[in-house]
C-alpha cells in the first residue's frame, strides 16, 4: 500500500516535471525562427529571388522553412543587413522587391506603430491627437529631439513598454500619423495624455487638461 502511494506520488511528480520541461523547451525554441511576410505569394517571390541569386536551392512553395530561413540569413549577412531571418522592408528592398505594406519613410512607420499600439479603438481624431503629442514632444525642450527618441524614451508609453509597439499598424494609424506629420494637431501643443479611468500616476492629474477626445484627456 505504502509502495503504491510512493509510486503514485512519483508518477505525479514526474508528470509535473515532464510538462514543465517542455514548457521551458518551448520558451527556448519559440524565439528563434520568426519570418514576417505578408502572404504565401510574397514568400514565393522571396524564394524565387533568393534562388536567382544563388542563396536558395529548395522548392518554390511559399513555405518558409529552415532552408529558406538559412538562405535569408546568408543573404542578409552578405548584404550587410541585420542577420535576423526577418524579411523586413530593408531586406525586401535589397532583394529588389517592394514591400506590400509600403513604408519607406521610417518616421511615418514608427509614428503609425505607436499610434496603433497606444490608440487603436479610439476615434480617428484621437489617433491624430496621439501622433501630434509625440511630435509636440520632439519640438519640446523637455523631451528627446527625434521621433524615435521620444517613442523609445524608457517608460514614456505603456504600449512601447509592453511590446504592443511591434504590432503592424492599420490604415487608420497610418493616416493619422500622416495627418499629424502634415501639421494637424487637434490638441494645439499638448505634451501628455492619459486615460482618467486607468491612470495610476499621481502627477499626471496635476497637468492642465486641454481637451478630452474619446477615452483620453490631453494636457499640457
Amino acid at each position: 500500500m505504502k509502495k503504491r502511494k510512493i509510486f503514485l506520488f512519483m508518477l505525479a511528480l514526474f508528470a509535473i516535471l515532464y510538462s514543465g520541461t517542455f514548457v521551458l523547451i518551448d520558451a527556448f525554441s519559440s524565439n528563434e525562427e520568426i519570418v514576417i511576410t505578408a502572404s504565401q505569394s510574397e514568400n514565393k517571390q522571396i524564394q524565387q529571388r533568393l534562388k536567382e541569386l544563388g542563396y536558395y536551392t529548395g522548392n518554390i512553395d511559399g513555405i518558409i522553412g529552415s532552408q529558406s530561413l538559412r538562405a535569408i540569413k546568408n543573404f542578409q549577412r552578405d548584404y550587410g543587413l541585420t542577420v535576423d531571418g526577418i524579411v523586413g522592408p530593408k531586406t525586401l528592398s535589397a532583394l529588389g522587391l517592394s514591400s506590400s505594406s509600403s513604408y519607406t519613410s521610417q518616421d511615418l512607420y514608427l509614428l503609425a506603430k505607436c499610434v496603433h499600439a497606444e490608440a487603436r479603438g479610439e476615434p480617428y481624431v484621437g489617433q491624430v491627437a496621439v501622433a501630434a503629442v509625440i511630435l509636440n514632444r520632439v519640438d519640446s525642450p523637455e523631451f528627446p529631439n527625434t521621433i524615435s527618441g521620444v517613442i523609445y524614451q524608457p517608460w514614456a508609453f505603456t504600449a512601447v513598454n509592453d511590446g504592443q509597439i511591434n504590432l503592424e499598424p492599420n490604415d487608420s494609424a497610418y493616416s493619422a500619423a500622416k495627418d499629424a506629420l502634415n501639421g494637424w494637431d487637434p490638441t494645439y501643443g499638448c505634451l501628455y495624455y492619459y486615460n482618467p479611468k486607468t491612470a495610476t500616476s499621481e502627477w499626471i492629474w496635476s497637468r492642465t487638461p486641454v481637451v478630452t477626445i474619446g477615452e483620453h484627456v490631453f494636457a499640457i
Partner: protein
Amino acid sequence: MEKSLKRSNIVLIVLSIILAVALVTFVVLYGISMSNQNKLKVDLENIYQRNYSELVDNINNSEIKLSKVAVSGENAYSRNLLSEISKNTAQATTNLGALPISINGISETIKFINQVSGYTQTLSNKLDRGESLSQQELDTLVELKDAFTTLKDRINEMSKNIYNGKIYDASVAFDGDLNKFTQLLQNLKSKDVEYPAMIYDGPFSDSMVNKEIKNLDFSKVTSDVAKDEVLNVFKNVDENSITYLGETNGHFKTYDYKLVTTSDHSMYVQVTQNGAKILTLSVGDFDDTQNYSLESAIDSAIKFTNLTGIKDAICVWSDVVGGDAYINLAPVESGVILYPDLVKVKVDLNSGNVVGFEASSYYTNHTKRSLKTPTLSIQNSKDEVPSSLYVKETRLCLAPLEYNREILCYENICTHEGATYYVYVNATDGEIENILKVVDTDNGNLLM
C-alpha cells in the same frame, strides 16, 4: 508474491532513474533560462552605463567649452566652440532620453540642457553671419558657465554613487511615482538655484512654444454661434446630426463638434471661440478608390477654404496618396505667396468631399505685412541658382526660413536628373537661403 514484489521494485527503480533524468534536465534548462535572463539584464545595464558615461562626458565637455567661450571674445574660435557646445548638449539630452528616467522627473534639467543647445547654436549662427553678440548675450554665457559648473560638480559626485550601484536596479525600485534612479538625478538641480533664462529665437526657445496668435482678434462668441458657422460651412449636414463635444482650452481656444454626414461619415470639427472660425477638421477615411481628379479636388479645397472665410488662397502644393489628395493653399498678396500662412486641406477622391482642414498657421501668422519691393530681378535670381539645375519656374514668396523670421525670396522650381528641387534665393541680397528636394516615397512626395 515475491516475484511481483521484485517486479514492482524494478518499476520503482526505472521510474526513479527517469525522474532523476527529468529533474537534471529541468535544473539545467532552468539554469540556462536564468543565465539568459541575467545576460539580458547585463546587456541592458551596459547600455544604461554607456549612456550615463557619455552624459557625464558631454556635461564636462560643455562646461569646459563654456568657460573658454567666456574668455575668448568674438572670433572664429568662439563660433566653433559655441557650435560644439550645441552638439555636446544635444548629445547629452539624447543620453538622458535613453536612460530609465520616470517621465516628468527631471524635466526642468532636460529643458535647460536642450535650451543651452538651441541658444549656443543661435549665437554661433549669429557670429557666422558677421553679427556681434550683445552685452546681454555675453552675460548670459557667463551665467550658463556658472550653472554648468554646478551641474558638472553634481553629476561627477553622483557618478561615484551610481557606479557602486546598478542603474537597472535603481530603475525598477519605485518610491511613489518616481523610480530611485530619477530621484538620484533630481539632485542635479539645486533647489535654491534657478537656471538662467535664455532670450532668443531658435530651437527650443520659449518664444517658439507659444507663438503669438496674430489673426484672431475677434470677440468671443457662444457655442451656438459657432454651431451656426458649422452649418454655414457644411451644407450637407443636418442640424440634428451635430453633437457638441465640449471645449479645447489650449493655445487655441475652440468649441468642438462631432458631425455625421449624409454618407454616414463621422467628422470632428474645431471652431475658434474668438470669431467662430473653422480651425480644424478631421475625418477618418481610408478608401483608396479615386473617382475625382486632382484638379477637381483642388477646386473643392479652394471653395471650402473660401467658405470658412479665407480668401485669395491659391494651391501651392498638392499630392495624391492612396485615395486622398493633400492640398496646401497659401494666400497671395501683391503677387507674393505667403508661405507662413499655409492652409492644409485633404480631399477624399472617392466622394470628392473635404475630409481634412487645418488653418492654425493661417490664424497664427496672417496679418497685414509691409512687403518690401525686391531689389533683385527674376533673371538675377535665376543666375544665383547652381548651374547644374534647370529652372522651370520662378515665383516671389515670403518664406518662413528661420525661427520667426520671414524672408522675401524668389522660389525657383528646378529639375536635375529627374528630381525636383526648390531653391530659395533672397530677393534682396541674392543669397541662397534654402534648398528643398522633393523626395518621392510610397507615402507621397515629401519636401526635405
